[in-house]
């Protein structure tokens, strides 16, 4: 009665080998300096391929009804909305020069004892505890 096609063990093993190879590849590539953000791009591209392999074969989506495709794509589409519009804020905060109201969140503060002379082990939370009241 199950509508799913039974996927052969051979396919599973092939996908598995693919995933292991990609894991080794992504680790190896990470140690090579590709310049700028290309390392991140490569890592994410490989991760997307791996995720697709798992979704399509291990999770049987390749053989599933259209409705399953709709639910899967909806999840990722909404993720895209979250990323696009949030980053729309962060990527446009610093354009147009000084008169704008804001800058990238880089304009932030370090804990008090960050100078090179700060003793190891003096923690951020200890110093904060003295001046703030964040307890339940």
């Amino acid at each position, binding site marked *: 009665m199950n509508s799913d096609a039974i996927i052969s063990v051979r396919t599973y093993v092939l996908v598995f080998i693919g995933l292991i190879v990609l894991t080794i590849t992504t680790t190896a590539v990470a140690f090579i300096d590709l310049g700028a953000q290309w390392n991140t791009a490569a890592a994410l591209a490989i991760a997307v391929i791996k995720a697709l392999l798992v979704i399509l074969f291990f999770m049987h989506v390749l053989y599933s009804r259209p409705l399953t495709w709709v639910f899967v794509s*909806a999840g990722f589409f*909404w993720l895209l909305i979250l990323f696009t519009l949030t980053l729309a*804020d962060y990527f*446009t905060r610093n354009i147009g020069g000084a008169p704008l109201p804001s800058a990238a969140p880089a304009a*932030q503060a370090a804990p008090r004892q960050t100078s090179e002379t700060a003793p190891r082990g003096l923690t*951020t939370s200890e110093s904060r505890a003295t001046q*703030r009241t964040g307890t*339940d």
Partner: protein
Amino acid sequence: MNDAVPERRLHYLNVSYGVKSWLCTTDHKRIAWLYLLSITFFFFIGGMAATLLRLELLTPQGDLVQAETYNKLFTMHGVMMIFFFLIPSIPAVLGNFLIPMMIGARDLAFPRLNLMSWYLYIIGGLLAIGAAVAGGVDTGWTFYTPYSSIYSNTHVTLTVCGIFINGFSSILTGLNFIVTIHKMRAPGMTWFRLPLFVWSHYATSIIFILGTPVVAIALALVALERVFRLGIFDPELGGDPILFQHLFWFYSHPAVYIMILPGMGVISELIACFSRKRVFGYSFVAFSSLAIAVLGFLVWGHHMFVSGQSIYAGMIFSFLSMMVAIPSAIKVFNWTATLYRGSIALDAPMLYALGFIGLFTIGGLTGIFLATLAIDVQVHDTYFVVAHFHYIMVGGAVMAYLGGIHFWWPKMTGRLYPEGWARLAAVTIFLGFNLTFFPQFVLGYLGMPRRYHAYPPEFQVLNVMSSAGASILAVGYLLPLIYLVWSLRYGAVAGMNPWKATGLEWQTPSPPPTDNFEVTPVVTREAYDYARAEPQSDYVPGEVEHV
């Protein structure tokens, strides 16, 4: 109750008795009752907080309660009303009760999950109340960082846990509805024969399942930051407090549509039934629900126009927010057009429905003020905003909820409510509501910020008007509580279809049997087929065939 019925017919209420038969039930109709009782409880807790807020605001000095108490009261009002009353109100009570019946199913797809949703809701609610009893929370329902994560020394973590758990209740309800609507429709019940109530709940469920997890994780991160001193939003470490606002509003703006969309569904049913007409532009109304759900996810940044967000992002969000006006306008115009050449009866549910259209129109139009960037700069975080969202949430969602409760009361209980009292309550609520919240628009543009315990004296007259209205509103809300309980014992026996409405839920006895229908109905007509119905008979719309 059975003295009116000569022979004892088994229905969902009398099929079994005892506390256990209710607390362990998987019947969607009984779970709806569990929700009805619990959200009423939370509504009156939130209402009591509101009463104290309005009493405090009678005088500008802030002399009734201390600032600290006031801050905890408005936080409690917001948390209770939004997370524990408005969000579950129509979906978990009316949606739970009606969706399976409207589509001709015996239950929701996952009845045990449905019961679990209620338990999660109750656990979440008890945690939130526990936090209030233990001393309260003073962050406002928005939990903005770094105040909530570092500075507030009230019970933020406990409250946040309550909301987090309650979030899973919403998610499971939404999941249940979507699967039910996809998979459990009776033979012949095609998508375009679905009542608009079902369409609007489908749209609501999309928001439940895709929005709720984001606020859950945002609040969880706040809790982690408090408990384990992680640094996620902490500006001391270089964190960005605005990031929390992005995550929070990604859910909490669509959450407004969680509250209003089911209300729109109710209104479509009421308008059609009491003007005996098919809803004008059915497919436009149906798709506008989906459009609101999807567009609702693209506009959250309009809560952040003055927050330090990039002004370019502000413009994008402003533009997208304007787009939501269109599906909303489509609905209002179509409802109005449905009345044209109808056969209009002004029973209490219809009074609520017509009141809803008026109040929602005002709420929606003032929403355009807030989406207009330069105006939002002036009125952001003032009473203008407070007035606007109360017009949507109270004038919209609560009016629709009450209208729906009255309309389906005969189906839920088998009894009619007293019509005269119900009309009186509807009119009282409408008048009290407007007196309470209209002055707040004026206050807002004048510049009275929200969450003010004491306020400059020139704002007093308008505040007194608002408090006076609130007392009328309170009476208006107590009336249905009394006469609806009264009707359980003394109300007239309703019969299967007192309104001569067309939905499948009216083709089964009141109260319905546990499996809803004695035989699975086969649907052969479109929704709201009043034109072809026989008004003089106790009629059976959409032929019910025996399978």
